[in-house]
């Protein structure tokens, strides 16, 4: 498995978001799809990544300095562009899985967007997807003794 190209294991249908999306909408998109990160795409190009922690880090920082009404106002007028991470680390579909996970470990990322040569996002690979694949593999394995 570790020597397979990433394209074999990545999720192909990536849910993306525009940098102009208001934060509450980004939040709902994550909750609704049970995901923790969204690649940010503008004119077909990947421009950033926004995670639940970016979102809630921002709201929390705001929440301690303003009251609830002001917070509502700030949040509903803030967009993904304000909190996203710019120029995220990306990999190509041909990157080997072990290289991808080494990058994830090194940067402490739990997911990496996969882009083609022209900068279009073609997939995403996440720690939890890979865990599911491994655990399934273990469950399917006949019991053997060590």
């Amino acid at each position, binding site marked *: 498995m570790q020597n397979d190209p990433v394209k074999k294991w990545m999720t192909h249908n990536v849910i993306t978001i525009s940098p102009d999306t208001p934060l*509450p909408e980004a939040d709902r998109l994550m*909750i609704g799809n049970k995901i923790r990160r969204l690649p940010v795409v503008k004119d077909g190009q990947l421009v950033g990544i926004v995670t639940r922690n970016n979102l809630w880090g921002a709201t929390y920082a705001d929440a301690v300095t303003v009251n609830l009404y002001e917070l*509502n106002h700030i949040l509903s007028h803030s967009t993904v562009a304000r909190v996203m991470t710019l120029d995220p680390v990306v990999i190509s579909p041909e990157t080997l899985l072990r290289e991808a996970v080494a990058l994830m470990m090194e940067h402490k990322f739990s997911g990496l967007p996969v882009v083609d040569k022209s900068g279009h996002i073609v997939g995403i690979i996440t720690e939890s997807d890979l865990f599911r694949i491994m655990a399934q593999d273990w469950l399917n394995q006949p019991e053997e003794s060590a």
Partner: protein
Amino acid sequence: MRVLLADDQPQVRSALRLLLEHELKLDVVGEVIYAEDLVGYINATQPNLLLLDWELPGLSTKEILPILHENYPNLLIIALSGRPEAGPAALAAGVDAFISKGHPAEHLLKKLREINASERLLVKNALVKDWMTTNVIVISPQAMSVEAHHLMVERAIHRLPVVDEGQLVGIVTFSDVLEAKASPGSSNNGPLPARLPLPLPVEQVMTTSLKTIASEKTVGEAAGLMQQHNIGGVPVVDEHGGLVGIITASDIFRMVVRRWSEGLRRQQLTP
């Protein structure tokens, strides 16, 4: 697994390469023809496994094996020979396995599959207690959701075991404190954020029917539990039901990945 081939016969090397790459999807990282190039190639390619022709020209097995053992303790070595009678001597010299070239390729495949399987078992059969996180960040059932939320954001974690007077009474996740049982049609469905932590104590939003695992169980069992119940982490309890740790999908993922980059010879997996 990264494999280095050392054999002077081109047809043997190409047959082995085909077998390894196509049957087992292993990485052949280099081919060595002369014994004197062995160490240089190992340095350059960092293989996990060496397939070594026991009759490699120039090979002084008495000299080279101690060097390999000394410098590459994690390198697994399988000796291949056209002379089956060389087996005992090769094993005595410290190779991990001996395969006669006269035998069908199935023998080598079987051996390599065993190695691959034991690799996987090494992680799967490791014990939860050796790999769990022991400094668990917990919260009291009387704390407010907003505190739980703050703690999770601050520590970048996704779940908190809820502990009351030393007893594990529940678990609360990030979505619990936010989505917490908001009544339909409330302002939570409106266009504004409003998904702030609800003004409720943790005990009203936590999950009480929680899955736990004993510290003596295996990592494989923990993974199975998480997979079956679609959860990302399980609190670890001792025989009295006391919380002693937590093991998450992310911990297990890291274990597997670390094994990928380490050698194969080490039989003990050290946390």
